[in-house]
């Protein structure tokens, strides 16, 4: 067994696995930095995956090519996820209801609605029809090595990297980022200075839905179908990554890589290499998450106004 190709494969696998986590964690960033807790990342992931498959399948049935259909699926995912985000914003920002329960409710809604529509559209309550997915680009030289093929030739991976970089710049260097920061820390102060807090919160939450849904679209395109409950807790792990990464895009992305690496290792070991039962390996990502969260407490401070609805002005 060659060490270098194995390492390369592991890195490539880590990058692929990290994509949905990164998109979801970025989504969480925008929402939570604006002051709204988002537990619904899981449901948004799932919704994105489903919307992607439905759109892509419809497009393919209409005669469009696999790649085009895939991109249409991506677009549909963003819209669907944004819609779910808008619902969360309506409940939490407009009505000031309990943000954690809203997230839980939306997760249940997404779970139920996707299974419901799955049965209606595809006739099965377990999985959908297959879609072609978006192929990697065949760039000379880069496409031959596993790591560079993932990093430079896979469109959605590139998009994820771009999203992280843009988000980090947005947060630290733009007026929007400054205002977002203020809104999550001290919305009353921001409001008193004319910052449109309500509009920023809506933006943050809707954006979180669209981004998390992108993660779901990736999952669907990678697996070439939608399976009921395919998000498998990734949305919650992404939230943990956000916390671990101290609520910054860069930190969250690094944390996602960490969790993805653990998962990549777990998958390798599932081949029976070390004799560990599959069920214990399946537990690994969740256990790693719990350990990471326990370890980072006290050093990772959430935005001060997180979870607190804005007092309505009389």
């Amino acid at each position, binding site marked *: 067994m060659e060490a270098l190709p194995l390492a390369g494969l592991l890195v490539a696998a880590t990058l692929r696995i990290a994509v949905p986590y990164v998109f979801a964690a970025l989504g969480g960033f925008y929402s939570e930095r604006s002051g709204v807790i988002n*537990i619904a990342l899981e449901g948004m992931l799932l919704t994105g995956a489903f919307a992607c498959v439905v759109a892509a399948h419809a497009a393919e049935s209409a005669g469009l090519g696999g790649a085009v259909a895939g991109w249409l699926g991506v677009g549909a995912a963003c819209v669907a996820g944004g819609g779910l985000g808008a*619902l969360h914003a309506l*409940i939490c920002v407009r*009505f*000031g*209801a*309990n943000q*954690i*329960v*809203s997230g*839980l*409710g*939306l997760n*249940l*809604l997404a*779970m*139920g*609605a996707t*299974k*419901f529509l799955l*049965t*209606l559209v595809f006739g099965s*309550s377990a999985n959908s029809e297959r879609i072609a997915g978006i192929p990697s680009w065949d760039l000379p030289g880069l496409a031959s090595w596993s790591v560079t093929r993932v990093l430079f030739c896979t469109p959605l991976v590139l998009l994820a990297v771009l999203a992280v970089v843009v988000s980090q710049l947005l947060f630290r260097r733009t007026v929007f980022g400054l205002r977002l920061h203020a809104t999550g820390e001290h919305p009353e102060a921001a409001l008193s200075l004319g910052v449109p807090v309500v509009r920023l919160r809506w933006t943050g939450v809707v954006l979180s839905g669209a981004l998390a849904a992108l993660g779901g679209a990736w999952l669907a395109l990678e697996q070439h179908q939608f399976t009921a409950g395919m998000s*498998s*807790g990734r949305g*919650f*792990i992404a*939230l*943990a990554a956000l916390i671990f990464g101290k609520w910054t895009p860069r930190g969250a992305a690094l944390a996602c890589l960490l969790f993805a690496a653990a998962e990549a290792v777990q998958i390798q070991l599932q081949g029976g290499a070390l004799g560990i*039962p599959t*069920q*214990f390996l*399946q*537990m690994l990502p*969740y*256990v790693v*998450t*719990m350990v990471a*969260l*326990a370890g980072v*407490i*006290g050093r990772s401070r959430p935005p001060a106004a997180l979870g607190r609805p804005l007092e309505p002005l009389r």
Partner: protein
Amino acid sequence: MKARGTRVLPGILGRWARPLAGPLAAIGLALAAGAILVAVLGQDPVTVYTTLFDAIFGSAYGFGQVLFKATTLIGTGLAVAVAFRAGLFNIGAEGQMYLAGLASAAFALALGDGCPALVAVPLVLLAGALAGALVALLPALLRAFLGVHEVINTIMLNFVAFALGSWILVEKLALFESVHTAEIPAAARLPRLETMLPAFRGAPLNLALLLQLLLCALCALALWRTRWGYEVRAVGLSESAARSAGIPVRRRLVEAMALSGALAGTAAANFVQGYKYYFEEGFTAEAGFKGIAVALLGSTHPAGIVPAALFFGALDRGGFVINGLVPKEFVDILQALVILLVIVLARPGDVAAQVRRLALRRREEVS
């Protein structure tokens, strides 16, 4: 200026109108939204809802099924509600119930045939409750002593619990080529209610219902009539005030969460001791998550949880039957809508504002 809406109905009806308004409106709106959904899909909402109604109330068997499903939901709803009262979110009821079912089945099998029913039943029940409490203990300790929020931890533990349980089942306990254990001895089983009430023949309704009702009463007593319960509620409403008052906050948090896990554990008895008489992969059927909806709809009070569990149990039963018309997940959508509507329509801030207005009016009258 008259404070609107507080004394619209006379007497005892008036006293209940305000707290019931939110949940009832949520149910009504959810059903209306469901009707629209059904219509959009080309089915007749009237047909769907009458079939639903018929499945629930049309026969004693049907109603027995409703009661049976409601029993589990009372258990998980109570678990979530007790945790809520302490300010904790127990999303792990599903995993706690799952491992409790496994533990109680394993314990019952280990007990064997020798034990008399009067001893076996409570012991097996206790084994399940203990297992549930232990599973809940980890996130409780992490929250009380490290300050880690329990939402993500309880969710993570669900996945861990399923994986662990699956391994134990496959390795140790499963019957050949099945996903369930052997049947537990007759002594450990809960008797069916159909023996006493023949109308319910065929429905798996069993003594677990009475057990859960008893637990509801006990929880209500504990929370509102004991010093311990007072302290737990104080912690749930304001940790800082409780701490200043000398209440041992961390201890109460852990105790409340452990109790919550134990209650989720008892919910397993309905299936394991009262229905199939074995532990089966997937027996929880989302009851832990539905418990959240039940707790919210029931305003996190045992008195509200029973009707809320009946409502969701009715939906579960109905969903099963309308599966020919619309996919049974229609019911899951309804339940999610109820959760979302309840938190919007019954916000505590609203209540406080109403009360303040009433108080101001009274003050003007007095001074």
